[in-house]
Structure formats: structure tokens, C-alpha cells
């Protein structure tokens, strides 16, 4: 099983949209996928999947109040997917978000312990992918996700905020943790992908990141996504649009990406 996090230094880079679409795409390919919303400060996966408020959330599993079976919903039958798609939603109620913010270190240690156990369990149950949609920046929940993952896809926009911030997290977090990363630029203004700008952009990216991470690719800014208003998964509703085609290339890269090595039972 491959376990990876979608992370970014700043918010609004499109992590959740990419996570949901990739999860659906991999499941359409027959892979068994588990997708967890670990952005407890701003849960949004439920909106994208159009899920009505439910009573059990991943928060309850982390607090040892519910079992994985109780908090993971298999959406494959309703979405007519080939593989399983187990989704764990984060509690969007303000009270839950507030209490999540007040958690101490011991609670987060417990949460990471629970996530490590879930990873072992999902692998034993035949999952091919465990995808974590994390909070942006450096929070307990995002660092938990990174520690849990075999590798991380850092989703960034092409601007100086993201360049500087991404370098910071690569140097201060990923390097000490010895975690491999892939860098995916999203919402790229199409003009930047045309010459002569493209060569300049590419050189800047290589100069800044080539020694620290591996470039996964560029996803242009598509109006189709904005028009969806965060209420649809385009891999399901409009599979032919360029955004989905771009993501298919990313899914291929993930398929080829080596799984965890040198760890017993595929990792801890």
C-alpha cells in the first residue's frame, strides 16, 4: 500500500479537489483507496462529495470513540467505482473545530497512534492507497499526516509566497523527517506555460527546488473547476475536461512511484 499526503504551505492551492479527484480516478482504475480528511480546521471533503451531515467522523476514531468501520464510508457502490473508496470525513461543526484546536500534545500523540494503526489495518484489508488531505502549513494534524505518509505531494501555486514557504517546509520538516516529496504546481496561469515565460519559470523552479524535491508537474488553471463551485468531482462528472486529463498523468506518476521499502509489513 502507498500512503501519501497532499500538503501545501498555504491554503487554497487545491489540495482537496486534487485529493478527491485522484482518489476517484484510482478507484475507477480498480484500486482500493482510502481517503481521509485530516484538515480539521477547515473540513471540506464532505462538501465536494455532496455528503449530508453524518454522525460519525474521523475525529471520533482519533479520540478512540469509534472504530474504523464506523467512521469510514465506502462510496464505491453509490459512485459506481471499480475499486473500493473508503472516505473518512472530518467533523465540520464549529464546536468540533474549536475543540480540535484546543487539543494538547498528548491528544495528538494519541491521534497519530490511531492513524498508524489504521494504516496497518487498511493495508491488511487490501487497500492500495491511503490518501491524506491535510491542513496547510505546519499544524499538529498536518505533521501527523506527513509522519504517517510514505511520501508527500506538495501542492503549490506559482508565486513567491508558495516558493518561499515550500522551501521552508522542505528544509525544516521534510528533510529532518527524511520524507520524499513530489512538487505539483496547481492553478498555473496558462500564459506561464507558454514560451518564453515557460523556460524562465522552469529554470526558477529548478534552481529553487531541484536539490530538495522532485517536480511532479503543472496543472493549469481551468475555469471548469471554478465553475463547479466545489460541489462536484470532475473525474466523475466531466471526465474528458483538461483538468481531469492533467490529473490522469499525475495518477500515472503515483502508480509508478515506488511503495515503502525496507519496512516490515509495508511500514509502521
Amino acid at each position: 500500500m502507498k500512503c501519501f499526503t497532499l500538503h501545501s504551505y498555504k491554503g487554497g492551492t487545491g489540495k482537496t479537489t486534487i485529493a478527491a479527484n485522484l482518489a476517484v480516478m484510482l478507484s475507477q482504475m480498480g484500486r482500493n483507496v482510502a481517503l481521509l480528511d485530516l484538515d480539521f480546521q477547515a473540513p471540506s471533503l464532505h462538501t465536494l462529495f455532496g455528503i449530508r451531515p453524518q454522525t460519525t467522523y474521523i475525529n471520533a476514531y482519533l479520540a478512540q470513540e469509534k472504530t474504523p468501520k464506523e467512521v469510514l464510508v465506502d462510496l464505491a457502490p453509490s459512485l459506481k467505482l471499480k475499486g473500493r473508496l473508503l472516505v473518512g470525513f472530518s467533523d465540520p461543526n464549529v464546536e468540533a473545530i474549536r475543540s480540535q484546536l484546543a487539543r494538547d500534545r498528548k491528544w495528538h500523540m494519541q491521534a497519530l497512534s490511531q492513524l498508524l494503526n489504521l494504516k496497518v489495518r487498511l493495508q491488511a484489508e487490501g487497500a492500495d492507497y491511503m490518501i491524506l488531505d491535510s491542513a496547510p502549513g505546519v499544524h499538529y494534524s498536518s505533521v501527523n499526516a506527513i509522519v504517517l505518509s510514505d511520501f508527500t505531494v506538495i501542492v503549490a501555486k506559482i508565486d513567491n509566497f508558495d516558493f518561499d514557504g515550500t522551501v521552508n517546509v522542505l528544509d525544516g520538516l521534510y528533510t529532518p523527517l527524511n520524507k520524499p516529496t513530489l512538487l505539483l504546481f496547481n492553478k498555473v496561469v496558462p500564459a506561464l506555460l507558454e514560451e518564453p515565460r515557460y523556460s524562465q519559470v522552469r529554470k526558477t523552479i529548478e534552481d529553487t527546488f531541484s536539490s530538495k524535491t522532485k517536480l511532479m508537474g503543472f496543472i493549469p488553471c481551468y475555469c471548469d473547476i471554478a465553475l463547479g463551485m466545489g460541489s462536484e468531482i470532475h473525474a466523475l462528472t466531466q471526465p474528458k475536461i483538461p483538468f481531469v486529463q492533467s490529473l490522469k498523468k499525475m495518477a500515472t506518476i503515483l502508480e509508478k512511484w515506488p511503495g515503502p521499502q525496507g519496512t516490515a509489513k509495508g511500514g509502521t
Partner: protein
Amino acid sequence: MIRAVYILIEGGICIYSRVYDTALADSMLMSSFVSAITTFSREAMGDELRGIESGGHFLFVTDHDKISTVIVADTPGEVSSSVMDYIGVSFLSMFSVHLQHQMSDTSVYRSFDEVIDRIVPQKAIAESRVDPREPLDALSIVEVPRSVRDAALVLLRRQSLQAQQAARELSIDINEAVEKLERLVKLGKAGRKETIEGVVYFI
């Protein structure tokens, strides 16, 4: 349970310590604390066996000639005048020459460990427990050396385990597992306790 034994000379300087519970804090810091308590208790209670409760432990002090013998224990019943006298007198008889010449090399007193270990019941040593100094959370794992991070993650997932279990999960031999887990204890990221089943590491 007896947690530690200290020998102090005039001026409150600690020249010997045998600490069975490393959770008692750094030996040097503890020595300074013991020294202050010893001076205070002498002024307040005189020269006899003196006992003070502090931080959930009982601290007993007795003076023997130029040294003060200090024992830290869990309960008052574990320490008697005869034990205190035996330790103090034994120390004086073994090291009177060194004490007379005020030799600065305190390593010579390490040979007193054997005497102390005979006096303090083995059960007390076996029960010694070390608590983690900080939670082994994701932020803490960033600071863990790469060579022991795999053991840290297994321990984090299981929350408590024995070296055999860690060895099995990591597909390494038991000595390597013990080494990794002990390193985590030393770093303050994990705890260690003795149980009937053996040594258990925990977070």
C-alpha cells in the same frame, strides 16, 4: 522503594550518588536540591535522622562525621536509622583517606556502587521506572535520530511494547531493538518499566 542514595561532604557538595530512578531528574540538579534540603533540615531539626517529604518522595538525612548520607524513598517505612548508619559508616571506612586529603577525583567513589546495590533490595532496582520527559508526538519525532525513528513509530503505534515485539515488527534482532528503545528512553521520548513479564517500553 528506594530511589537514590547521595553522599555529601561539608559545604553541601555531592561526592557520590547512586540513582535508581532516572526520572528523578538530572543527578547534578538533584544533588543541589538535596544539598539545600540537608542544610535546611540540620538547622531545623538537629543532627538526628531527619525526614522530609518533597514532590511525592521522602528524603532522609543523617550526618556521619564529615559526611551526610541522604536517601530518597517512596515511603518512610523503607528507611531506618540502621540502614542510614550502615551506608554512612561503610562509606567512611572505605574512603576515609580520600576524604582526609580532599581528593577532587570522585570517580574513586564509584566502587561504592557495589556496597549500595547490596544494601538496597534488588526488588527496588528491578522496579525502577523511567517516565518519558515529553510526548512522542509528530513534532517530537522530527527530533528523533533517523536510526531509531522506525522503533519510535512502532512504539507510538502500540503505545507500549517489549523489545521482542519491536524486534519482530522491525525484522531486527533483539539486541538492536533494545538498543533503539533504550536510545529513545535516553532521549526522554519513551519510558521504561519492569513488569512481571519483563521490561516494557511505553510512551
